[in-house]
């Protein structure tokens, strides 16, 4: 316990204000060592707004993040596959970590954000920018960090029920229970939708797009003592979707089922030598496409030690991933490999104003010499007064992405000797605070070499090759505030990003792509939301804007998707009686009934509605 308090004491003084714009973070959480963002000095780790997340309880991260972060999702229809694009990179360039374990699909390389439901995620943080040295393969554009928190120290039962347009129903139940040394939490959820929304372009109902998603989470934590504990997390998610066909397509039959088992067990121990944690993980991702199953199993083990030596906060970590791909299209239907990662992270404060971090990673992957990955970050407090702060920050990093299993093992196309993609990234920014008004401005540039592209060769057969260089550069502005006017609390937030992500080197057959913006990568992206709280009422308006998106490598205007802006509105009230709390909320999505597409040819619904009812029973221990 002493160790915890000590660590708490050192970071609150320097890191506290970074979170002040997020009132939601003030809820009590257990801190084991330095918070994640302290090891990424120079860039930002921003949590998802928990109030908005609660309002979108039945939605996926793919439907939520684009209203809070300047990111783009190429979404293949309503409730369908959603790949993220952060800072001008492609969906394979964002790493999603669940309790520290990468849960991107190892066969495709990307995470499908449409099957990451908010209902299953206790805490979501987004690290924008390159961070491979800390988060491993694929963390070019950013990383999405998902963590489970077994207990809040209270016994709690939450029941939620939603009903929405197009036959959409959602139910969930969460129970958490703490008894002596045990903390238990169980969460089950079920979402189904007929998803037969009217297609605005044709006036016909969308055929063949019904889906169902359900899952269960179990968290168990056992504390031997104040300094020793074991926690276990299990998450099973099952999605069954009729694949939404293109606009106007008849006779569609494709169906996809995703079954994801995710299991992690962690042992933590504090001593005067530091904080030791040992993690074991098992991830089993199965995709059944038109009744053909294919899957990747991973066994993960990791050991981490965190300690303070001469005021250097230090983490050393070793991780082993054993990966088994069972996919019919691989040679012999099978692929297997081992990956090792050795990392260390060091954080140091120099005086009151300067903070430095260094992250180092050496991956070991079969068949190529993996690069050594450093991340160097610094923050300097230029001005620090009670109501007035100015901070400058910057980072430099080298990053990499291992080719996917498909890139390496696909029959008659995959290449086991593909090189990893590597990137060099730099960013610099300034944070300004005046009272509760916070403004941050970040400039970034990242050069990705050996960018892998599947290109047609003989007889039109596509093969992956390390052929391109991409330069992604841009600028981002974030503004947020918290205003209290009499009894009304106003929480406005705004973000804007300008990104030029262009091909800078390409082989002879792709010369026409040089200098062209990557597909589905808008140059202009903006988000904004305003939350209003008055007594037991609350209301919010959220908006996302994306500029023109090219859908072909040559940047033809004929095929580009036009810019759009979407608005959602929700309004709710809660009632409290003793230990009982009731919440009722009404939402209107796509208020302006806009016809828009996130992926070419896939319809998205016009104006629609949702009704949410939540009951919470809380009993203090």
């Amino acid at each position, binding site marked *: 316990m002493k160790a915890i308090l000590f660590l708490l004491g050192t970071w609150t003084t320097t890191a506290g204000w970074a979170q002040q714009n997020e009132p939601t973070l003030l809820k009590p959480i257990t801190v084991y060592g330095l918070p994640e963002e302290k090891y990424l000095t120079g860039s930002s780790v921003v949590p998802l707004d928990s109030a908005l997340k609660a309002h979108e309880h039945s939605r996926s991260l793919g439907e939520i993040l684009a209203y809070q972060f300047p990111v783009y999702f190429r979404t293949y229809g309503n409730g369908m596959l959603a790949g993220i694009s952060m800072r001008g990179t492609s969906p394979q360039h964002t790493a999603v970590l669940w309790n520290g374990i990468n849960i991107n699909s190892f066969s495709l390389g990307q995470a499908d954000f449409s099957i990451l439901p908010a209902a299953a995620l206790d805490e979501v943080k987004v690290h924008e920018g390159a961070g491979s040295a800390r988060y491993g393969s694929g963390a070019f554009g950013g990383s999405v960090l998902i963590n489970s928190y077994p207990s809040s120290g209270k016994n709690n039962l939450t029941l939620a029920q939603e009903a929405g347009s197009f036959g959409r129903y959602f139910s969930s139940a969460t129970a958490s229970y703490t008894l002596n040394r045990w903390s238990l939490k169980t969460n089950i959820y079920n979402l189904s939708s007929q998803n037969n929304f009217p297609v605005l372009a044709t006036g016909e109902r969308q055929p063949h797009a019904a889906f169902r998603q359900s899952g269960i989470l179990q968290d168990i934590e056992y504390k031997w003592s104040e300094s020793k504990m074991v926690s276990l997390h299990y998450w099973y998610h099952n999605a069954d979707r009729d694949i939404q066909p*293109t606009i106007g*397509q008849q*006779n569609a039959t494709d169906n996809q089922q995703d079954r994801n088992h995710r299991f992690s067990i962690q042992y933590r121990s504090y001593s005067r030598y530091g904080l030791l944690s040992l993690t074991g993980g098992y991830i089993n991702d199965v995709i059944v496409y038109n009744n*053909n199953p294919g899957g990747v199993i991973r066994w993960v083990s990791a050991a981490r030690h965190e300690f303070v030596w001469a005021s250097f906060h230090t983490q050393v970590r070793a991780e082993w991933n054993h990966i088994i791909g069972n996919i019919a299209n691989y040679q012999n239907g099978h692929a297997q490999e081992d990956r090792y990662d050795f990392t260390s992270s060091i954080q140091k404060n120099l005086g009151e104003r300067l903070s430095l971090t260094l992250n180092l990673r050496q991956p070991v992957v079969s068949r190529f010499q993996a690069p050594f990955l450093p991340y160097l970050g610094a923050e300097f407090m230029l001005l620090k007064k009670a109501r007035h702060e100015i901070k400058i920050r910057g980072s430099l990093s080298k990053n990499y992405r291992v080719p996917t299993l498909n890139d390496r093992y696909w029959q008659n196309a995959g290449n086991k000797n593909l090189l990893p993609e590597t990137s060099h990234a730099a960013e610099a920014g300034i944070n300004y605070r005046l009272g509760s008004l916070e403004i941050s401005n970040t400039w970034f540039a990242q050069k990705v070499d050996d960018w892998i592209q599947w290109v047609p060769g003989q007889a039109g057969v596509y093969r992956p090759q390390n052929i391109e260089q991409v330069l992604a550069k841009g600028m981002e502005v974030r503004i947020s505030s918290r205003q209290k006017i009499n009894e009304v609390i106003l929480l406005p937030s705004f973000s804007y990003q300008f990104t030029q992500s262009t091909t800078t080197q390409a082989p002879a*057959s792709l010369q026409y792509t040089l200098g062209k913006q990557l597909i589905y990568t808008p140059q202009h992206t903006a988000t904004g939301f305003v939350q209003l709280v008055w007594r037991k009422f609350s209301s919010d308006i959220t908006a996302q804007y994306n500029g023109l998106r090219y*859908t072909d490598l*040559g940047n033809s205007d004929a095929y580009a998707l036009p810019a759009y802006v979407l608005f959602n509105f929700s309004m709710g009230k809660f009632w409290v009686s003793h230990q009982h709390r009731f919440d009722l909320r009404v939402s209107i999505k796509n208020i302006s009934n806009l016809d828009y597409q996130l992926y070419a040819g896939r319809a998205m619904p016009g104006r629609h509605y949702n009704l949410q009812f939540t009951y919470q029973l809380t009993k203090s221990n």
Partner: protein
Amino acid sequence: MKSNFRLCVLLAFVISFSIVSCNKNNDPVKGKYQSGVLVANQGNFGSANGDVTFYNPTSGQAEQTIFKNVNGSFSGDVLQSITLNGDVGYLVLNGSNKIKIVNSNTFTQTGIFTDPKLDKPQYLAVINGKAYISVWGAYDHNYNLIKSYLLVMNTQTLQAVDTISTDLGVGNLLYNGKYLFASNTNFGSSSTVSVIDPSTDKRIKQLTLSAGPAGMVLDANSKLWVIATGTYGGNNGMLYRINPSLFAVEQTISLGANPGNSLCISPDKKTLYYAVGNKIFKIAFDGTAAPTSPFINAADVVALNTLAVNPANGDIYVGDALNYSSSGNAYIYDAAGNKKTSFAVGITPTQFVFQ
């Protein structure tokens, strides 16, 4: 300055009037697209952006996405082919499982044909008020093609009236005035050409050739030529000359390569053209062996996806799909093999239609 302007206006008026009156006298204006080259562009598979490029060989101007320009949205997913029949155009949408019917002069949509049996349609031929649509068909759960067939549609009622079974992977269609020939390619796994008698809508014969029968033409002697693309990487493509009355193979020419699907013929119907990669070969209709060197080495072309000959002047049109997901290019060579010009087309040009 002012008088110059007036003169220009007057001149422009006179010129345009004379053009209009000229057209009125000889060839009534039926629509913007009544005369020129139509290019079917598949679009990106799964993105429903298949559309048509219109090229005017006289002016050298190309207009992209004409279906969208006229009707407000792309024609659909994977525009596989266009068939013209008088003033009616049929757009065969392989991904959308639809046939869109347009006025071929204005490209205004006039109808849609859908049917539960219309699963991955390929090509369409109109014979005596009936449209014969080659239908690739459904796959089973192990990705084996179950059955392919021709779906027969009444062009007046736009209703399916019959199905005629073929071999697996039916594609190109050719009507010689008596029989309808349908080549069964199935990526080189089928080796046959089905023969249909349109007077009875029955399959009367199935000719066995070799792997991957694709493009077909009729020569000056009314003989049927079929190109077979061979098996993947097998360099065993073939050309067949067939007597279309006796259904007998009269000439077999081994190409020693895997050619593309396209087979075309000169306006006098005495020279055939085919492509291997981006090399274009020609062979006389009385030839007996494959040429050893190409007629045109289309070095600018990255991915030759389709080849056609303008029946009006013998110009050779080449569609370059680049990487199959970017707007492509078309190149024009004259009958002597000299490059004339090029123009931009849409994503994955797959067929040239001359009207």
